[in-house]
């Protein structure tokens, strides 16, 4: 279709392009500033109002944080919890989605209704906290993984995906004497790799970014995750008097805050292109926490 373009239309187009480009740049500016600042000296950060390139390049902030045991511990912890948590959550979701994709399984409708109801109504923060406490999971990393083990939206999307796979695949496997578990493991999972990779990424981002669960369940600050550590570094003082920030803690220099933010952001930015490949299709809307 050839769109007839008036002068007014062309002016609008140019203005629109400029405006949208500005929006894109403004979105990105905070990252660029923080990234540049993490390589700048303290004097430069405090004296220059804004910059996207440091005058004097230094790795001091990174040297400092990577020689701080609390930071290393938080980083390693978060990487491990994210890796294990993603596997556990994916395993829970897939093993539940597969039987639910079988339309003749008795009890399927009841279970699906209960899953949908759990999407609408939840017990809320305190009852969940008391449950985790009663299960003895306080100050355990499982408290960051198990309460969110299955995202109902992801479950239903994966179930629908399994349902839409051609039945012949399974039929022929049956002929060859494959078991249900064998079919899931050897036929469905390899076929679902791209879909599962996407959900794995979304689960991983969810765990990596999670601040509420460690805040609620990890009171022992030697177990803190990166988000908790980041919060302590940047908030820097116990403004709330909630005891979630060590009262003896001395606020660090600005550059160190910049560097911690960069480390906490980088994995998300690295995985972002893989995420973007899939969510743009719109199939994942609503399935992401936060």
């Amino acid at each position, binding site marked *: 279709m050839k769109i007839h373009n008036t002068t007014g239309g062309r002016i609008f187009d140019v203005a629109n392009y400029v405006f949208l480009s500005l929006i894109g740049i403004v979105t990105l500016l905070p990252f660029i500033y923080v990234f540049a600042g993490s390589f700048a000296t303290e004097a430069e950060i405090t004296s220059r109002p804004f910059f996207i390139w440091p005058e004097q390049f230094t790795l001091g902030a990174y040297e400092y944080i990577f020689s701080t045991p609390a930071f290393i511990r938080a980083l390693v912890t978060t990487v491990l919890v994210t890796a294990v948590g993603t596997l556990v959550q994916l395993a829970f979701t897939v093993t539940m989605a597969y*039987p639910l994709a079988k339309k*003749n399984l*008795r009890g399927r*409708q009841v*279970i699906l209704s*209960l899953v949908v109801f759990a999407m609408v109504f939840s017990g809320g923060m305190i009852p969940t906290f008391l449950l985790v406490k009663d299960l003895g999971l306080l100050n355990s990393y499982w408290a960051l993984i198990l309460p969110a083990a299955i995202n109902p939206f992801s479950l239903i999307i994966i179930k629908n995906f399994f349902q839409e796979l051609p039945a012949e695949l399974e039929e022929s496997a*049956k002929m060859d004497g494959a078991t249900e*578990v064998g079919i899931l493991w050897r036929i469905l999972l390899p076929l679902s790799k791209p879909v599962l990779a996407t959900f794995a990424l979304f689960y991983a981002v969810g765990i990596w*970014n999670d601040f509420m669960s460690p805040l609620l369940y990890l009171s022992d600050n030697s177990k803190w995750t990166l988000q908790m550590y980041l919060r302590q570094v940047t908030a820097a003082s116990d403004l709330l008097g909630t005891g979630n920030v060590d009262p003896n803690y001395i606020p660090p220099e600005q550059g160190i805050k910049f560097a911690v933010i960069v480390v906490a952001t980088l994995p998300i930015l690295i995985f972002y292109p893989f995420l973007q490949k899939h969510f743009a299709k719109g199939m994942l809307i609503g399935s992401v926490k936060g």
Partner: protein
Amino acid sequence: MSQLTDALASNIGAGDGPGLGKGKGKRPGKPAKVPRGKFSVHFAHYKWLYLLLLPGVLYFAVFRYGPMYGVSIAFKEYVPFLGVNGSPWVGFSHFQDFFANPDFPRLLGNTLILAFLNLGIAFPLTIVLALLLNEVRLSILKRTVQTLVYIPHFLSWTIVASLSFLLFALDIGPLFQLLNNLMGTDIDFLSDPAWFRPLIVLQDIWKNTGWGTIIFLAALATVDQDQYEAAIIDGAGRFRRVWHITLPGIRSTIIVMLILAIGQTLNTGFEQIYLMTNALNREVADVFDTYVYFVGITQGAYSYSTAVGLFKSLVGIVLIFGTNALAKRFNQSGLF
């Protein structure tokens, strides 16, 4: 055994008809061979599937329905060593306490103001951004801008809050200096209660406006292109086309998103508000979600805070059903 597996295989991929449980699963030409009478036979046959189902069902039972049962402490006086079951019932007294508490009107006000700011500013901005993106015919520009504006959605609130702390840092933050120079003031945006709400809205816009356009862009792609051609022939300009074709074309999407947003009115986002709350702005910052945390977790008033949380959830459900009914009454397609 082969008979049984055949029957199962023949049922895989079948339309979403009635299951075996209802005894009406027969489809023409393919009589199911699985015995239907007894559940025990059905169960024995599908034991592997039920075994696979077990972890998930246990998860929902424990971590989703367990807390729902735990909500009962809103009507009890929870005593830790007595547990949820053993604690004595107190009826609606926690709710009465809450409604009589001066905190209640303050929390309600703070929550509603944030919600309305969000609905009134962030929501329309999302639609405007989607419309502007939709007008772009230079696909490389469109994709680049989309790529950039989606990024913040994937960052944690901790990072968003930390970025705000740095950008608005007293005396040295770039935005602190820029805005104060422009206005000729000396405001500490992070602790000034008057600036709490603008900051929250700004964060919301930065983090979620781009992401929010996805659903509207998807809807915009379905608008009938022939109508545009007809409108162009009729001499309609750019803005008239947007007003008379594009917007009506995505009206049902706007309404659905609006219903969902209104249903979220009282969910102000715990992490964001918690991270931006400090001793100086508590008066305007406290919302239901953070109040439940402060009173429940840090002060140990479990029953009272559960009652507050339950009140919030119920109002949310009423709101979502209410707006849905309203949308239907005005002859618009609702959400369900």
